[in-house]
């Protein structure tokens, strides 16, 4: 069963197209991250799913029921969708327990109490049920927002940059906690973020957004190793691009010499650039090499080197190495054998 199906969606805001011919489906129990820089239309997409925004083309279905077509929008309150906002949007005049019970006010008092109790247990906030939102930390507020949305038993959860206001110390533990809660309850989710690290940790699949379109969708590893465009490659992490000077049976030739693809995977003959991640490049001290270290800094688990070419001062390449070498030291460069990604 598909929980969410978006077909050929287009959407404009103040006469400007924000989303353009976008399609996306969400499987049962799946968490998809919409990843992209700010202003690329990912929040707008979330708002269209929530019924807070009109669409100009295409349709949106939730649990096989059409909820949005151009000119006909099912009201937000009838969609059974949960949403977590960047500012948590907790009602400041209600206590934690009252906030959680807000969406289930039609149930009997005892049912409400049981539900609130189990939600408080779930997010580990039982001692705080009588507190007001401003008396809680950011992470606690976030958990109340999750509990409130889950108490309503939504078909799908929408999260709009939910972790950006939480300090980096506790961000990842809260993310994993919430991911686990969503998974346990079998609630599928769409998660908007501009941080690839958050998307990696929280989502099953990532949709990379670029100017109102999904550039590429897939799991994290796939997007990192097999990006289909430099845009996706850059978004996923630091990348070096090298011009291909020659192609042969063995592999491709660049200024680093011959690079052999792993397992003999074919290389597109018309492409002119090869993409190399810094960790796929190995350095070793070599006094005869034309390459030398221009800058370096300690990156945590390794040293990060900016390597230049004495024949071509414009050239710059990033590589990682476990050892520390001085600036200006000459280094030889070897490309580790891996599946090569090339672009035109």
């Amino acid at each position: 069963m598909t929980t969410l199906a978006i077909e050929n969606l287009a959407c404009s805001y103040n006469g400007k197209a924000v989303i353009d011919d976008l399609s996306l489906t969400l499987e049962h129990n799946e968490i998809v991250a919409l990843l992209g820089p700010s202003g690329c239309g990912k929040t707008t997409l979330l708002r269209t799913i929530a019924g807070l925004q009109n669409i100009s083309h295409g349709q949106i279905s939730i649990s096989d029921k059409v909820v949005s077509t151009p000119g006909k929008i099912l009201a937000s309150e009838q969609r059974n969708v949960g949403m977590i906002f960047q500012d948590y949007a907790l009602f400041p005049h209600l206590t934690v327990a009252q906030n959680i019970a807000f969406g289930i006010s039609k149930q009997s008092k005892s049912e409400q109490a049981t539900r609130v109790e189990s939600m408080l247990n779930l997010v580990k906030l039982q001692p705080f049920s009588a507190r007001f939102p401003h008396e809680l930390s950011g992470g606690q507020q976030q958990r109340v927002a999750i509990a409130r949305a889950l108490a309503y038993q939504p078909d799908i959860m929408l999260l709009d940059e939910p972790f950006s206001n939480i300090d980096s110390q506790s961000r990842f533990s809260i993310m994993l906690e919430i991911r686990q809660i969503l998974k346990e309850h079998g609630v599928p989710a769409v998660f908007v973020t501009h941080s690839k690290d958050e998307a990696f940790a929280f989502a099953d699949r990532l949709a990379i957004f670029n100017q109102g379109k999904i550039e590429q969708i897939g799991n994290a590893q796939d997007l990192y190793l097999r990006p289909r465009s430099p845009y996706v490659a850059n978004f996923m992490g630091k990348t070096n691009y090298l011009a291909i000077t020659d192609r042969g049976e063995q592999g491709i030739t660049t200024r680093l010499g011959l690079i052999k693809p792993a397992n003999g995977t074919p290389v597109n003959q018309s492409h002119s650039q090869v993409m190399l991640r810094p960790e796929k490049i190995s350095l070793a001290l070599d006094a005869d090499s034309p390459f030398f270290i221009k800058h370096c800094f300690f990156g945590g688990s390794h040293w990060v080197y900016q390597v230049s070419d004495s024949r071509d001062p414009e050239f710059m390449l990033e590589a990682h190495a476990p050892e520390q070498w001085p600036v200006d030291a000459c280094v030889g460069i070897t490309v580790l054998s891996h599946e090569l990604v090339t672009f035109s």
Partner: protein
Amino acid sequence: MFINLNIKWPAFSWLLSLLLFSPLLAIIWQSFGDDHNIFSHLWQTVLPDYLLNTLLVVIGVAVSSMLIGVPLAWLIAMCQFPMRGFFVWALLLPLAMPSYVVAYIYTDLFEYAGPVQRWLREFFSWQSPQDYWFFEIRSVSGAIAMLTLVLFPYVYLLARTAFLEQSTSLLHSSRMLGCSPWQSFVRISLPLARPAISVAIALVAMESLADFAVVNYFSVPTLTTAVYDTWLGYGSLAAAARLSAMMIAVLFVLISIERLGRSKQQLYQKTTGQETKERFELRGFNAFITVLFCSLIFGLAFLLPFVTLIDLAIDYFEQSWNEQFIQYSINSLMLATIVSVCCIVIGLLLSFYKRLSNQRYAYIPSKISSTGYALPGTVLAIGVLIPLSFLDHQLNELFEWLGREGPGLILSGSLFAIVVGYVVRFVAIAIGSIESSFNKVTPSLDMVSTTLGLSPLQMLIRVHLPLVRKGCFAAALLVFIESMKELPAALLLRPFNFETLATYVYQYVSDEQLELGALAAIVIVMVGLIPLIFLNRSLEQQH
């Protein structure tokens, strides 16, 4: 702070603030004095009725302002309908209308000899007042209606801001949790706006408690008129002070409500910025009813009285444009200018002291100096008269002891009294405005200035003054306008034969001859419109 001020700054600031605080102290002290049983006499005769009238007026105005102001605020903040852009600011204009002018105009319209009743009598061929029932405008309910017309904009303004500043994501959340727009209003918008509404209600209640002009004109005796009469009629400062102390007790309650509201407001009104508000589009019948409601209120509270004033002013221009009018305009301008300058200087000194002092209690001088604003004009006048007439007394005795003729009421009977009264009443505006400007100046500028070798005075002149200039200007303008409009304090404190525009207009209102004072009334209204333009512009920029 890290700067060592020499003893002059703190001493001067504390002395100044104690002087500004002295009227309140004087009232409390004097209310324990001997009043020759006037107060107990009043208490056994008329005072219970006065108290009841006061309560009726205050509660009546508060409730009806809420009933008009909150719906208007919600419609303007959350809905889109024809002419909305006009009503946004037009509904603020009644604030500029002096209440006694509105009262006069409606009395003229609705009294027995007025056009409405005349027309009704003609139409139905009624002969005498016994033939029909018509409401009496010179009554408690009439006073409530008149005061509501000029005071409801407080509720409208604060509630509108509250609705606008509610985070959109809260309303969206409520919708996502299954609430319809109407349910969201009842469960989210209204509770969140409640602190702001209670602040507004407290302000409205304070203003109607302080009102002197309307109730006096309508002959509805209240505590304010009692204070006035006790002083002018019985000549008893002590009894007047006792009555004033009673009002201060009520004010204290109202101010506490206001403070509580404000502290909650900060919690409830938090926007994340850069949100676009979607308004509900009203069409057809709903739009018609909305526009009708807004137009009715605007018409009654501003358009009708203002057009009447202009009409009168044109008809009687020859008689109104005379030496008196020019003389009294000059009096008002001069008085307002002197008071503005005094308030700005005091505001600057106290704000600067508060900023630079490293003492724990440095916030107190500016706090206690601001108490005068909460006092009704009549009460404040009594508070100023008590210490000034005491000083006059001492001075005259001193002169007599020296064997010379005493100077008379040189303090309490001269322009000095009215200037002091106005300064005590309006310095709070200056302090508030200047302090908030000071708060916007980052403290690191002070540190830079000191490390670059500036003394506190040099820093005030070379760094702070240029930066808080705008706040000073705004404060001066507001104080100026309030001084132009102030009536009750002027009636009690003005020297013999000294008239301001406000007392001049009120004189004509009392004499049932507003046509001759219409020109002066228009000047007061126009002056009152100036801050509304600024207010509206700053609100538009925020949203």
